[in-house]
């Protein structure tokens, strides 16, 4: 068990390093930082001096190590486009994305598991068929269209909910939250639904498939042969077994919800990290791109590790 966890931790570190390499390589080989920072009137001597000062003449591994060191401190330099420290941009926009991501994941999990279990048990009912239709539509409807559709219905036609932005936010320390104001909460509804919808369909299908698979196992058959009531088999036996792979897979997906938020944030003009990244791509703002990548990799690795940890806790076969 310990070996498993250590391996998971190492893998996480490896991922962060690998992404770091990509991010750093972007810095070195894509675009010209000197040109961006020095401006157009700089002379060659100015450029050479800037080059030396930024340490761009040092060997690759040293520069990489320096990059990682800075990254660990949250220092990614200055944004090419906005001329502000990238770290500031990150902390400004982080709460918006985190709130959105966490709420949508919760929504998707709760509704998804419920519907998935229901669809597996009542295989022919109305709910089961709706679930299948819904998940099929979910895979065919791109997130941005869902967002636009919801905006049209609830913001334009019905005028119940706002169509963009976070509404009023309350600042607590360096965090800003929209949960404490009415406009904040209203602004959260549509983006959470949009971001959650795709995850919801995935979870629904997964739970249904796993549950059906579990209901076909020998141990369920044996439980039936012992006369255990069907309901009990479904909710005490099969559900338990189903949740083990579901929790792991959902956990793994969770690590990348933040990245999934890119599209939703763009549609709703949500001031989060995703919108920041898209902007950065359009203008080839390398520091911001690199910082975003590292952050996503970090979250990804951390969530993966925690998921592995939980998996070990719930499956006795791994607890040797």
């Amino acid at each position, binding site marked *: 068990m310990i070996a498993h966890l250590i391996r998971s931790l190492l893998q996480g570190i490896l991922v962060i390093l690998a992404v770091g390499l990509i991010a750093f390589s972007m810095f070195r080989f894509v675009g010209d930082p000197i040109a961006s920072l020095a401006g157009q009137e700089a002379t060659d001597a100015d450029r050479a001096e800037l080059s030396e000062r930024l340490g761009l003449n040092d060997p690759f591994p040293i520069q990489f190590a320096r990059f990682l060191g800075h990254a660990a401190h949250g220092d990614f330099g200055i944004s090419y486009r906005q001329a502000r420290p990238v770290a500031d941009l990150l902390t400004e926009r982080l709460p918006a994305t985190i709130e959105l991501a966490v709420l949508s994941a919760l929504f998707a999990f709760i509704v998804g598991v419920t519907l998935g279990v229901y669809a597996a048990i009542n295989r022919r009912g109305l709910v089961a068929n709706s679930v299948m239709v819904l998940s099929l539509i979910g895979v065919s409807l791109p997130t941005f269209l869902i967002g636009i559709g919801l905006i049209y219905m609830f913001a334009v036609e019905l005028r119940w909910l706002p169509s963009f932005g976070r509404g009023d936010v309350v600042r607590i320390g360096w965090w800003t939250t929209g949960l404490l104001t009415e406009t904040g909460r209203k602004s959260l509804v549509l983006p959470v639904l949009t971001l959650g919808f795709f995850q919801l369909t995935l979870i629904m299908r997964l739970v249904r498939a796993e549950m059906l698979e579990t209901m076909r196992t020998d*141990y369920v058959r*044996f439980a*039936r042969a*012992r*006369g255990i009531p*069907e309901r009990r088999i479904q909710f005490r036996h099969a559900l*338990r077994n189903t949740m083990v792979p579901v929790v792991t897979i959902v956990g793994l997906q969770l690590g990348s919800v933040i990245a999934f938020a890119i599209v939703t944030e763009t549609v709703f003009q949500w001031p989060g990290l995703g919108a920041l990244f898209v902007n950065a791509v359009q203008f080839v703002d390398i520091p911001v791109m690199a910082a975003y990548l590292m952050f996503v990799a970090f979250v990804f690795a951390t969530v993966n590790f925690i998921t592995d940890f939980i998996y070990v806790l719930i499956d*006795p*076969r791994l607890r040797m």
Partner: protein
Amino acid sequence: MTEPLLSVRNLRVEFPTRRGILTAVDGVSFDIAPGEVLGVVGESGAGKSLTGAAIIGLLDPPGRIAGGEVLLKGERIDNLPAEALRRVRGKRIGMVFQDPLTSLNPLFQIGEQLTETIQLHTGMSAADARGRAVELLVDVGIPAAERRIDAYPHQFSGGMRQRVVLALALAANPELIIADEPTTALDVSVQAQIIALMKKLCREHHVAIMLITHDMGVIAETADRVAVMYAGRIAEIGPVRDVIKHAHHPYTRGLMGSIPTLTAESERLTQIPGSMPRLTAIPAGCAFNPRCTHVFERCCIERPDLLPTERSQVACWLYAGDMRATA
């Protein structure tokens, strides 16, 4: 004669498919007396497992019982509503499957799985049920039962797991246990232990066993009577000694001849040419007629009923009254 515990009359199991209706079990009839061990033997696909599943009401759809009756102590159980049938399962008829590893839920301790079954059928308190569970484990030969009751299935070896499975099947004191290939997934040395255990349990708990297997050796060791199945029908049924030593049906003779023994005089094992027919192409008349060395005209036209011999019954026209002399 005492009233039979289980009585199967003309059982027919069908599978509707797009190629038509396939009859996997066709008119099977037999009785099991209380405390008796009936072996059901045959090749893969002969319909043995389906017969067992049909009796306990665990046929996987689209399979269904299309005809016949199953009577437990004189009362029909094949047409019971789902809830009533569920109460029969475990309490009056138990079932044991082939693979002990997949028969136990890996996430629950075996103690939990035992006490659940016990409490469900007897209504004991949790403490009492746990005590009874320990007793059962001791009964099936699990060492240090008090401790191991809290272990998980993967912490047991294959043979131990099958013992646990037997304990679970016995938990509610059923009168009949259907054992579907209980030793097939085990090592040969462990097989012998499990067979001995089953015999002991049968004696001590006075529980009848329907032992389904393709291994004649196990039958010879354990069963009182044996039914030989072929293509969904019973070819021969009778006391074990009779069927093995004096097989009547040509198929049974072929089976016995194909078993290698240490004391056989001949050098070659008997082979039955051809193979068992697929469900879509069962011959008219006796299902064995294309492969039979004693086949004659009647075999291809009329399907034989189970005809009596001295101690057994055979589904073969060779044993119809007028033909007996030439058998």
